[in-house]
Structure formats: C-alpha cells, structure tokens
C-alpha cells in the first residue's frame, strides 16, 4: 500500500531517518515510536507527500507519491497533523464534513446521507452533543477528536496520524485507539506516531522505532517492544509490569 525505499530525512543537517525500507500493507496498524525530535513528524509528513525527503522514494500503490494528482491522492491518503490552527469558523459538524472535500469537491454539502455519516462519526468520537458547537470553542481534547472524525470522514485507504492521542483522557485514548484498530481491521492501512508504548502494544501490530543518528528498527510489535529496545529508545530504565496478557513496561 505505502512503501518507502531508501528513505532518508534530514532536518537542519541532522539525519533523523537513514535509508529506511518500509512497507505498510492493508490491514496493518503501525506505531512510530521515538523520543522528542527523533523525526516522527518528519517521517509522517514525508510519507504524506507534504515534505520532500533528502533521499529515497515513497510510493502509494506502486506509484510515486509526487506523481499522484492532489485530489486523487487525498482520496487515498489522509493525515491528521500534530498542529492545526483553530481558525475554522464553522461548527464541529461542518468541520467533520470538510473531510469529504476530496470526493465531493465542495465544502458546503447538504447531502443528508453525508450529514448522517458525519453525525455517526461525531458519535463514534463521543462528540454527538457538540455537533452544533463552534469548532474554535471546543476544548483541546474535543478538537482533537473532531480532527479524527474529519479524517474518518475522508476515509482514505491509508491513514497517517501524528500523535492521535494528544490532549485525550484515558477513556478517549482507548476509544480512539480502538477506532483506529477497527479501521485497520477493515482493510485500511494505519500508521501513527505515538508516545504511549503500552497503547501500541495493546492495539498496533507493527512498530517503527526511531533511534539517534538515523538508525531505524521496524517489525512486528512483539519483537520491537522489548525491554532492551525501549530502554535504549527512551534512554531511561524500565521494568516489566505484570498482571497483563501483553508485555508492557513502566519507568523506574
């Protein structure tokens, strides 16, 4: 679905990702883990075709990402960014409906079927009561969930998310992770930058670990999220937590 070949990313003369070979297939749910400034966002922006990498090639469905016409790309690949200005004037429902722009090419659709769909998505992210509230007056966590609902409305085959759990409380973190895992199970490809290895262990099936000086590890989640890997990744001591069917670690 989404492939990176020989991908290198450097920001301000610092190599963040070196010579990465990655293939994200349909039905897979990937976590990208790394410390602050390790290149998670840069990797996602490059994969979305929004930043040119310093070397290498990115392909969506065997076609170079830069060769896709913008509209067609937006029908197949979506991204939830880490930062978005909160300038949008409309209400939460209008905001979610904008996710339909790549297909309907209008920001003002009054199609009742689409509105129903948008309302259902607001319900899914627990914003059903906020549909008519102005987007810019939503709280940080509510706005984050509205942005996720907009991405679900866009419904691309490949969905990239930069810290989808930011500003969310534990309940909504879990709900959002489950919503993303459902989409992966439904045949979408999902790749997200995360700061929560436990959530990744619970609901992702693959992981990319971004180490210093461009070194990247990736593979199946159980092989990636080992005590050694994570201690080196986050540069702090971790100990295994028991009482759980999956292996998670807490800082010591």
């Amino acid at each position, binding site marked *: 679905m989404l492939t990176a070949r020989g991908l290198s990313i450097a920001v301000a003369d610092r190599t963040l990702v070196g010579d990465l070979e990655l293939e994200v297939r349909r039905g897979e749910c990937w976590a990208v883990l790394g410390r602050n400034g390790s290149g998670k966002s840069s990797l996602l922006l490059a994969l979305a075709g929004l930043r040119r990498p310093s070397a290498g090639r990115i392909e969506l469905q065997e076609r170079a990402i830069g060769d896709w016409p913008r509209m067609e790309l937006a*029908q197949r690949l979506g991204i939830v960014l880490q930062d978005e200005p909160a*300038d949008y004037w409309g209400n939460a429902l209008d905001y979610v409906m*904008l996710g339909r722009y790549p297909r309907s090419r*209008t*920001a*003002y659709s009054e199609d009742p079927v689409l509105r129903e769909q948008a309302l259902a998505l607001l319900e899914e992210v627990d914003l059903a009561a906020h549909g008519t509230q102005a987007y810019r007056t939503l709280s940080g966590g509510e706005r984050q969930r509205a942005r996720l609902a907009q991405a679900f409305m*866009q419904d691309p085959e490949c969905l990239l998310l930069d810290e989808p759990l930011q500003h969310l409380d534990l309940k909504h973190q879990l709900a959002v992770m489950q919503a993303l895992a459902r989409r992966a199970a439904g045949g979408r490809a999902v790749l997200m930058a995360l700061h929560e290895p436990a959530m990744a262990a619970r609901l992702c099936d693959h992981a990319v670990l971004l180490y210093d000086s461009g070194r990247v590890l990736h593979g199946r989640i159980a092989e990636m999220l080992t005590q050694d890997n994570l201690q080196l990744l986050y540069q702090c001591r971790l100990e295994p937590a028991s009482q759980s069917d999956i292996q998670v670690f807490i800082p010591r």
Partner: protein
Amino acid sequence: MNRRTLAWLILLSVPASLAIAVWHGSVDIPAARLFAALSGGGESIDREILWGLRAPRALAAFACGALLALAGTLLQALLRNPLADPFLLGISGGAAAGALTAMLVGAALAVQHLFAFAGAAFAAASVFAFSLRPSGWNAYRVILAGVALSAGFGALVSLLLSLAPAAQVHGMLFWLMGDLSGATDPLPAWVVLGIAAALAQSQAAPLDLLALGEDKARSLGVAVVAVQSITFGCAALATMAAVLLGGSIGFVGLVTPHMLRLMGVHDHRTLLPLSVAAGGSLLALADAVARSVPAPVDLPVGIVTALIGVPALLFLLTRAR
C-alpha cells in the same frame, strides 16, 4: 437575524444605495423630475445631470467600494490576518508614486493613469516575487514585503509633494486622500469587478479549507499554491482597478468583511458576494454624503469613509474576542 434575511437585505442595499447616490447631489432635483429624466423624458439639464454626472459617479463609487471590499476579504483569508487590507500590498503606494510623478511632469490624464497603473503593477509584482518561494507561500513575507514597499513609496510620495509647485499640490493631495470626482468612466472597473469576483468565487471552498492550515488543506486535495496565487492575483487586480478609479480610499476594504463576519457570515461562498454588495453600497452612500453635505464643495470620499471607518473599526476591536 436570520442569515438568509441578512443576505437579502444586503443585496437590496445595492439598488437602494445607487438610488440614493443618484438622488443626492450639489443641485437639488425634485423626485418627479428625476423620474422623468430617468425614463428619458423631462428637461435636458436634468437628463444631463442624471446620466452624464450622477449615474457614472454612483456606479464608479459602487465599483470602487466593491473592488476594495473584495480585495480585503481575499487578503484576510489569504494571509489569515484579520487586519489585512487592500493597501497592505503597497499597491496604492505604487499607484500614488506613479500618478504623482506624471502630475509633476505635467502629463495628460491618460498618462497619469498609465503611470499609476505601472506603479501599482510594479508593487504587486514585487510583493508576489518576494513572498512566493518554491517551497510555498509565506504570509509573513507578503506582509513584510508589502509594509516595506508601502514605506518606500510613502517616502517617494513625500518627496514628490515637496518638489511639486504649490499649484499642483492640491490635486495631488486629493488623489492621495481618495477622491471620485475624476471618476467619469466606471466601465473598466466594472469589467475588472466581474472578472475578479467570478474568479474569487471559484476559490470559495478552497479558501475555507485554507483556514485549517496549508498542510491540512493540501492533504485534503487543495492545490494550495495555485489557490493562493489566484487569490493574490484577484486581490491585486481588484485593488489596482479601485485605486486607478478613486485613489487611496481607506477602510472600506478592511471594515466591510469584518462587519459581515460579526453578523455571522463566515463561509467564503456567501462572504465574497456579500462583501462585493456591502462594500459597493457603503462607498456609494459615503460618496453621496461627501457630495451633498458640504455643497457646493466636493469633499474627498476618503475622508468620509475614514470618519465612518475609524470609529466602526475601533468598535469592532472592542467586541473582538
């Protein structure tokens, strides 16, 4: 107020303001004689005043206000800056420097227009060139380049004023204050208005999506640089046409979109046409006030719009969150 009612009221203000602008002038003509002249009858002096003076003047004022409001709305969306207005781009400064240079050397009116156009086009092209980079557009560069050019042209205008013989300074000052008394042929401005408004309308949805940020808009399929270039082009074209017609008439472009937003109109699909209607009506009315209040002296309309615009803007600022 219901949004649909508001939209109809603003659209109705177009014929209403034009009617008031045609009615009022330094010579009082009773309504009955005006109607007779309007239908092609009546006295020839009335017909001459109506069709030869007041109608072109009213249409020029309307086109000028509509162009400025359209440019203001587009620039506020493009730069995501609520204080953007048509004169931010240095276009009026460029036009003023051009026009005053032509006046100083005693050139004919047509040459003055040509010089003003050249100055305005130079300013617009410079701001465009300074702000567009291969990586994309940068709003800060637009603002900085516009402010720098405006300051440069301001100095040039001061120099031209200090060089000019006293007899010419009066005409130059009128040009600078914004004045529609020389606006006898509104047709070119209306043509530009039609083109710019139609082109801007085609970008209404992408302009709304730009409020989500450039990267997000791009990921939703918006050709960001193309939309920004078209928007900038429309705004620059509209500003140039307005400045060539009426000089630097302030505040219409800044205040009109804000008034509409305060009344709840935000989506560009509605905001753009209502800005055209409201801006045009406002300037047609302001010009009628400028012409009729201190009769028989013609007051520059730029003074009237500033007298209305400054308190209106300050009032809006106190209401801003």
